[in-house]
C-alpha cells in the first residue's frame, strides 16, 4: 500500500495544477458576458506579473553574503543594455546566460 502513496501524490498534484490553470476559463467561458473588472485585470496583469516574475527569479539571491548578488546584477544590466541597444531577444538572453555562467563559474567562485 505505502508504495502507491507517491503515485497518488503525483496524480493529486497534477490535478490541482490543472485546476489552477483551468479555473479562469471555466469561471468565464467563451461567449458569456464577464464582469468588466475581469477584462480590465486581464489587460493590466501581464505587465504587473512580468514585474513579479523578474523579482521571483531573484528570490534566492542574498545581497548580504558573498557575492552580494553581483553576478545577477551585472548579467541583468548586460541583458537590459544589449536589449535597449539591439532589440534582439536571443542575443540578450544567450549573451546574458554566457555572462552569468562566466561570472558564477570563473569570477565569483
Amino acid at each position: 500500500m505505502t508504495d502507491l502513496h507517491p503515485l497518488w501524490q503525483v496524480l493529486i498534484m497534477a490535478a490541482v495544477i490543472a485546476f489552477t490553470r483551468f479555473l479562469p476559463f471555466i469561471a468565464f467561458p467563451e461567449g458569456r458576458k464577464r464582469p468588466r473588472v475581469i477584462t480590465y485585470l486581464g489587460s493590466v496583469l501581464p505587465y504587473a506579473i512580468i514585474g513579479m516574475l523578474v523579482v521571483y527569479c531573484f528570490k534566492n539571491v542574498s545581497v548580504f553574503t558573498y557575492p552580494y548578488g553581483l553576478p545577477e546584477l551585472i548579467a541583468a544590466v548586460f541583458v537590459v543594455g544589449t536589449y535597449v541597444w539591439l532589440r534582439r531577444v536571443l542575443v540578450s538572453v544567450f549573451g546574458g546566460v554566457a555572462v552569468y555562467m562566466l561570472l558564477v563559474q570563473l569570477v565569483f567562485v
Partner: protein
Amino acid sequence: MIKKSFRRAFRDSLPIMAGYLALGIGYGVLLQSKGYSFWWAILMSVTMFAGSGQYAGVDFMASGASLLTTAFMTLIINCRHFFYGVSLLDKYRGTGAFKPYLIFGLTDETYSITATTTLEDDISPKHYYFFLTALNHSYWITGCVLGAVLGMFLPFDSKGVDFAMTALFIVIMTEQWLSSREHLPAILGAATTAVCLVVFGADYFIVPSLFLIALEMVLFRKKLDKTGEEVSSE
C-alpha cells in the same frame, strides 16, 4: 501559414529551451538523489508540467506528506496560474480543439510569451500557441528525463544556465517598458513582489504578492483602465 506559425513559435521558444533543459536537469538530479527512477521524471513532467510545483513535489514525496497537505501546498504554490488564465481569456478564445492543451500547458514561461507577444497577420494564433506550448513541454520532459538518467554525471558544468529564464523575463519587461507609455503596472508588480519577498520570505511571498497586485490594479483602475471600448464586443 502553419509552417510560418511553427517557425515563429520555435524562434520564440529558444530562450525557454535553454532554461527548461537546465531547470529540468536540476529537477531530474534532485529526483534521482531522493531515490526515484526516471519513470517518475516522465510521469511528473508529462502530467504536472510545472517547475516550482515539481521541485516542491519531490519534497512532499520524499517526506511522505499526506495527500491533503500535498494538495493544499500545491494549490498555494500554483495559484498564480489563475491570474495567467484571466489575462489570456481573449487570446485563447476560439482556439478550438487546441484550447484544453493550451490551458493545461500554461507555465510561467509560455504565459510570458503568449500574454505579451503581438502576432503578424500571416501567423495563425492557435497553431502558434499550440506549437509554443508543445515545444516547451517537450524541452521540459527532455530536461527532466536527462537529469534523472544522467544524474550527477553530466559531461559539463551547467551551473548558471538557468539564468536563461531570468534573462527572458528581463527582456520581456524591457520590451514592455519601451513599447508602452504606462509603466505603473510593471513598477507596482515588481515593487510589491520585492516588498513581500522581504516581509514574508522566499517560501511564502507569492500569494500575498498576487493578492496585493490584484488589489492595487483595482485601486488604480480609473487611471489604468483603457478597455472601455473593447468590452462591448463580448
